[in-house]
């Protein structure tokens, strides 16, 4: 080209033709890509997730796993206190907590967790609705300890804008407190409420499965302090470990499996009312 374009160099017809051709071609190719990405059938998804569930992690190096046996939990709150002392969790925040589920004859379920169960539990509170029968004694009840699920497909890591949330090779989800800017996006992204914004550090914080302890050969503080053996921690890639035996001989479930986050924290004796 000899010089800059002047309006006379391109006719209106030629200009419109070029625009139509380029736009049309890119739209065609773009929509093709979008279609292949979005039009995955539900059965394909189900097949993929079933395959992912069947995939064994045996012999893939150290991969930590956590099992909560809700049938054994007595609701003493030792885990909550041990976690607070071990990790310096500020008052009013919890990395792990215990929920008390009580079922009443009229069908009402009361879920209670005063201070996360830190001070133990008393008798459950009465149902919120007015008692219609004279005897409103509960018919069923249990405790459910909760903690970070250390999901394989984590929503919290995905949303972090600065790369402060990450997953180690052992499958532990951690927070880099030097990089975290405290936007709390991950706190909102977690569907299990496992994260909080530390009021002192002003960074996101969460259960680390006591990474500083387990890498030194110790058990997490909550597991070590549990007097009922309701919490089991170990290396799931080692077939001779206790947790592998428990996973092989029990029917385990995860919380909110329909969200597809594939949690590594698994539960024994989970009731359908537990959310």
């Amino acid at each position: 080209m000899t010089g800059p374009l002047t309006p006379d160099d391109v006719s209106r017809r030629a200009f419109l033709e070029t625009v139509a051709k380029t736009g049309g071609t890119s739209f065609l190719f773009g929509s093709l890509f979008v279609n292949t990405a979005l039009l995955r059938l539900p059965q394909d998804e189900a097949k993929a997730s079933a395959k992912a569930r069947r995939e064994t992690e045996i012999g893939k190096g150290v991969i930590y796993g956590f099992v909560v046996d809700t049938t054994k939990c007595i609701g003493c709150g030792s885990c909550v206190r041990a976690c607070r002392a071990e990790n310096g969790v500020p008052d009013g925040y919890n990395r792990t907590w215990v929920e008390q589920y009580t079922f009443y004859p009229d069908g009402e379920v009361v879920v209670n967790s005063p201070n996360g169960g830190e001070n133990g539990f008393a008798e459950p509170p009465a149902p919120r609705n007015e008692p219609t029968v004279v005897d409103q004694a509960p018919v069923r009840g249990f405790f459910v300890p909760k903690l970070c699920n250390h999901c394989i497909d984590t929503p919290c890591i995905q949303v972090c804008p600065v790369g402060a949330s990450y997953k180690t090779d052992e499958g532990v989800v951690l927070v880099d407190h030097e990089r975290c800017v405290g936007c709390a996006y991950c706190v909102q992204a977690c569907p299990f409420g496992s994260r909080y914004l530390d009021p002192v550090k002003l960074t996101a914080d969460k259960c680390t499965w006591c990474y500083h302890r387990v890498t030194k050969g110790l058990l997490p503080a909550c597991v070590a302090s549990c007097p009922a053996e309701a919490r089991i921690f170990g290396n799931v890639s080692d077939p001779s470990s206790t947790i592998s035996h428990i996973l092989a001989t029990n029917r385990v479930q995860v919380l909110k499996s329909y969200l597809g986050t594939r949690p590594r924290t698994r539960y024994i004796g989970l009731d359908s009312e537990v959310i």
Partner: protein
Amino acid sequence: MRHAGHFARLFALVAITVVGFFFVRSKVVPKDFGVKGHFRLSAIADEAAREPRHIGSSTCADCHDEIATAWRTGKHHTPQCENCHGPGLMHTKVIGEEPTKAYPDKMLAVSALAIKRPTGLTECKWCHLKTFERPSTLKSITNVEAHVVQHQGTFTAATKCIDCHNPHTTVVTPAKKVIQ
């Protein structure tokens, strides 16, 4: 080339922006960022470097061997020492590098401050207060007042569980100061 100057200025601006971007990026992004994923690799070592605050009952037993044996052989061996006494890291630090049984009095006083002395009432209620959800196999009482009524005349307002029930062995011995 009427507009050569314009192009030169535009090119210079773009070049400065691109070079500046990569310069600032090299200074701001840590060296080990992105080695194993979208995160700082040395953050793992930072997290693992924290010191465990719970030392474990076996460490407690190194010095307090008599009470540890009584606890371990008794019925109450499932709750660990630090469940009621709190984390023991500061306790071991205060004692010093070479803990022996014969501490100077001053050292003992300081180390005693670093460990929690349980009240002997609230700790018991964490497990042994009866609620509907707790298993019936766990020994529990409905409320402390009812227990007081059951042992009428032998209790005062200041009575604690541990006055009669030994928390380490679960052996029940009516305390003298209560019975008087």
